[in-house]
């Protein structure tokens, strides 16, 4: 009986529950025993020239080791010209690179600041308390410039943020609208909607420690990708990667915002060399809310057309991505949005175009879903608007237009080929699981009575792309030792996903070595020089498969060794994966243990290394139904039930897959109802602390109802797709649609997210007046 697919407890937990994890700020390693602390001085203004920085008073403050500005950065190689990519062997092609060129981003700000929170100077102190005091003594003179804050501001181009570029539009792509595409549609609905800016908010903020010693740079960083971080450091410092060691210790959440090592982390690493002393930095939450990259912030013009009886014939999505102060990921995010624009629907004509603009706000980067939640939110809103226009139930409209199960692999009009799926079944499961008809009846009763608290049912059907960069591959090495235990070295980099448990399950399943005897190591470039890391929901289908393959190769080696030991032919040997014993077929008495075989193999035991590059992107799918109550007197919406199908193919660890769904759903609900990064018209953050940024708590959520559905993919040997981002992608539009559905009978057609009480009430009031 394979352990795969069974419910296990995590091997990571005993340590985390007793002494707690060791995150960067908890490290007590010898290299950092004399480390000094870094405190950043950040811009308090969104757009300004720096006309002077006076650090003298700060330098004299107690405990100060150094105060550094851009003027001190005289020891770095110039940045590579734009377009240079990572080397073919080491870094993996994974993370999209900054645009560079006219959009160059400095380390410490040089002559101007472009967003509140941009690093201007650093204070290096013996301890963080002195650092907080000394940082206040750094005096920076700013000459304010007009702030470009919103997408509209940027497009107006009245203030061009980068003088060497033609406009504030950094990237533009996609075809202009095709004349006549909607001409034959009986019904056309068009609307401008917002997918608002969010803070990824991992519970552990950014943290970096760095030590230059004996010609080697060691950097501990709270990252999702140790190897990519090393590649970035090598490029910035002009070093041979072999002279850099990057370690990802325990990482307290990433959600896409900890891909590689960012600008502030590079500053810490540089400063450690410049001063000649080990340094450590752990940001405060206030820094995190303006200094860590934000997510989403796309404006959508959605246009949907079709027949009066519910057939969608045409759909156009125009995206404007707010990139923030620097277009770090280039057009990557809207590229993914356009790629998934058509969603799970069979639509004859689909168009998508995008522009990316710069503004005086925190730069935008990946955040759980990274471009795909935006695509799904757009088309799911469009479908509901279309349904409302033709007076048809939104479930029926979806069922009418979903790609049917007999069409796979399915060529989406937006570009990708969806590998496998059964979208109608996902929808039907969710409707049945929720009791859709009874809920509609209850909704009707409440409307009839004119209840204050109305009921809304919100649906989303989705398909998403995981392992979009599958061609970058993932590595896995497996050693079986002379004592019969095993060690896995994985290029994946868990930051909550529990890979240690899952990879141990794979080894046990393949080889019969018990999970408790399998040690998994990740995130240390000295031990794992080649790897990509964890994002894009890629790890199980690439890193897990690599481990499984390595196990297969170890098995082949072991077979050969065992055959020699037992003087039998390899063809006659069997491995009993329940007991982990090798024996000659039909003769269980003469068995050899893994310890026997590994010892016999030689002093290094058995080992195999795999770089699995045959993967391709896969397309998990699902449906979410949100049951929402809206108090029509106050506008307050409450999520009462949330029912989902999230089909990610074969599930290796059901407990952990559910956990990923739960976490994604919570973040998805948070976007729909509560969270938003807000700037005032001058670019000052209004949600710069957790007192104001409305992060969702247990009190705002119900328990979720997760239904099972496993439609394997033929693309990898596990049949697995990614699950990490699906919950976020499916949940947001379902909840948004649910809030609106609760008040459509009052004349409301749309409410932008987050559907906070004041917004819902304003929509109700407007509809009642209009």
């Amino acid at each position, binding site marked *: 009986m394979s352990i795969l697919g069974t419910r296990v407890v995590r091997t990571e937990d005993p340590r985390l529950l007793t002494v707690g994890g060791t995150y960067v700020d908890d490290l007590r390693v010898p290299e950092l025993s004399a480390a000094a602390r870094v405190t950043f001085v950040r811009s308090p203004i969104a757009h300004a020239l720096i006309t002077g920085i006076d650090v003298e008073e700060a330098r004299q403050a107690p405990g100060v080791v150094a105060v550094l500005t851009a003027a001190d950065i005289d020891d770095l190689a110039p940045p590579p010209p734009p377009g240079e990519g990572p080397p073919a062997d080491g870094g993996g092609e994974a993370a999209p690179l900054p645009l560079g060129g006219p959009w160059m981003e400095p380390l410490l700000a040089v002559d101007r600041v472009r967003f509140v929170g941009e690093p201007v100077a650093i204070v290096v102190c013996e301890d*963080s*308390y002195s650092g*907080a*005091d000394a940082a*206040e003594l750094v005096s920076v003179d700013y000459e304010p410039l007009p702030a470009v804050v919103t997408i509209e501001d940027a497009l107006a181009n009245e203030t061009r943020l980068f003088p060497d570029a033609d406009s504030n539009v950094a990237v533009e792509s996609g075809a202009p609208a095709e004349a006549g595409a909607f001409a034959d549609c009986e019904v056309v609905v068009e609307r401008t909607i917002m997918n608002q800016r969010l803070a990824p908010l991992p519970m552990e903020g950014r943290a970096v420690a760095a030590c230059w010693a004996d010609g080697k740079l060691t950097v501990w960083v709270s990252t999702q990708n140790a190897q990519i971080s090393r590649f970035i450091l090598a490029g910035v410092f002009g070093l041979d990667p072999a002279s850099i060691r990057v370690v990802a210790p325990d990482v307290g959440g990433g959600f896409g915002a900890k891909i590689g090592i960012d600008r502030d982390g590079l500053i810490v690493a540089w400063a450690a060399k410049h001063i000649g002393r080990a340094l450590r930095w752990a940001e*405060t*939450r*206030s820094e995190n809310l303006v200094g860590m990259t934000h997510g989403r912030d796309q404006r959508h013009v959605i246009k949907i057309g079709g027949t009066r009886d519910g057939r969608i014939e045409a759909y156009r999505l125009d995206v404007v991505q707010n990139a923030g102060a620097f277009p770090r990921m280039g057009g990557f995010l809207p590229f993914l949005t356009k790629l998934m624009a058509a969603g799970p629907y069979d639509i004859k004509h689909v168009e998508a175009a995008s522009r990316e603009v710069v503004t005086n706000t925190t730069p935008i980067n990946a955040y759980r879903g990274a471009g795909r939640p935006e695509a799904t939110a757009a088309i799911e809103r469009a479908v509901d608007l279309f349904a409302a226009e033709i007076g048809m139930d939104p479930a029926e409209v979806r069922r009418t237009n979903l790609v049917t199960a007999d069409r796979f692999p399915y060529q989406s009009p937006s570009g990708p080929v969806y590998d496998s799926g059964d979208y109608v079944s996902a929808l039907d499961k969710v409707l049945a699981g929720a009791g859709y008809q009874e809920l509609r009846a209850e909704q009707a009763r409440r409307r009839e009575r004119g209840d204050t608290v109305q009921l809304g049912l919100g649906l989303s059907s989705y398909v998403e792309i995981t392992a979009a960069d599958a061609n970058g591959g993932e590595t896995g090495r497996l050693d079986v030792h002379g004592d019969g235990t095993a060690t896995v070295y994985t290029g994946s980099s868990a930051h909550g996903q529990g890979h240690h448990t899952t990879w141990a399950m794979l080894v046990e399943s393949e080889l019969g070595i018990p999970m408790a005897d399998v040690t998994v190591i990740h995130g240390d470039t000295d031990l794992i020089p080649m790897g990509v890391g964890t994002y894009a929901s890629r790890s199980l289908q690439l890193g897990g498969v690599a481990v499984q393959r390595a196990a297969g190769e170890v098995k082949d080696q072991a077979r050969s060794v065992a055959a020699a030991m037992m003087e039998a032919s390899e063809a006659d040997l069997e491995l009993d994966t329940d007991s982990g014993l090798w024996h000659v077929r039909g003769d269980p008495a003469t068995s050899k243990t893994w310890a026997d075989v590994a010892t016999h193999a030689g002093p290094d035991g058995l080992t195999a290394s795999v770089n699995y590059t045959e993967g391709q992107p896969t397309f998990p799918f699902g449906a979410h139904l949100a049951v929402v109550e809206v108090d029509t*007197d*106050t*506008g*307050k919406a409450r999520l009462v039930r949330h029912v989902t199908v999230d089909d990610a193919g074969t599930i290796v660890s059901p407990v952990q897959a559910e956990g990923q769904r739960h976490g994604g759903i919570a973040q998805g609900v948070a976007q729909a109802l*509560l969270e938003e990064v*807000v700037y005032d018209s001058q670019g000052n953050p*209004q*949600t710069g*602390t957790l007192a*104001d940024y*409305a992060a*969702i*708590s247990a*009190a*705002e959520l119900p328990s979720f109802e997760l239904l099972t559905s496993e439609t394997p993919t033929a693309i990898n040997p596990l049949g697995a797709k990614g699950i990490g981002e699906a919950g976020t992608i499916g949940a947001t539009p379902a909840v948004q649609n649910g809030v609106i559905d609760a008040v459509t009978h009052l004349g409301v057609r749309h409410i932008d997210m987050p559907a*906070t*009480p*004041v917004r819902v*009430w*304003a929509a109700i009031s407007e509809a009642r007046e209009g």
Partner: protein
Amino acid sequence: MIPASFTYKRAQSVDEALDLMAAGGDEAKYLAGGQSLLPLMKLRLAVPETLIDVGRLGGLSYVRDEDGHICVGALTSHHDLATSELLRRDVPLMAHAAGQVGDPQIRHRGTIGGSLAHADPAADLPAVVLALDATMIAQGPAGTREIAARDFFTDFFETALRPGELLTEIRVPKPAQAGWSFQKFTKRAIDWAIVGVAVQGGNVALVNMAQTPVRAGMVEQALSAGADPAAAAAHAAEATNPADDLNATTGYRKHLAEVLVRRAIEEARGRG
């Protein structure tokens, strides 16, 4: 995250606290539970040079029945208020509201005295003591004095306490009418009230509708004239000036006040 430097002093008695405060001057502040003051200090929005910790004055943590009043020591924690059998029986409005302050951790440390002296108009207990017509007892260099709730909250984060005075007790007359309600409207459970309403009998007080907690005088007048809850509640926003902020517009707050006042009156009537 890190407060500016200060000198910490611990008082073992009320008299010592007053002496330390007199010595500390303008830049000294009392520290009770610290759940209002320490967050401000960590953001360096408050930078006292001396903190006088009165948190160990155990004699100031109590809930007692005295002479037709429920007397609450200023250093009673919100948790102790919320779980006090006596308070829950005789002044359920205060017990319930105390149980809504912040979260459990904050309620274990925060005190009623600290909250009242801090005088945030968005806080729960100031409006409650206003609705209860409570009397604040303060001890200072010049002796002990009583300050009626209606005189206590003077402006945004300001009270009638004179420099050096320490709040020692809140004296609540046992409510004549049993009906009570506390309506706290928030976006999330942990948030400050966007708008709140405290009702005890015919007394109606508002949270976060002005620079201080206020009594909704026009509502009370309408109620005593026999108006039904909806009609009385229509006056809820009169003589208020609620803020326009991240969570709500002025107009929305006024609307909420009407809705919540009506609900509070109805709930109070249902209770007595």
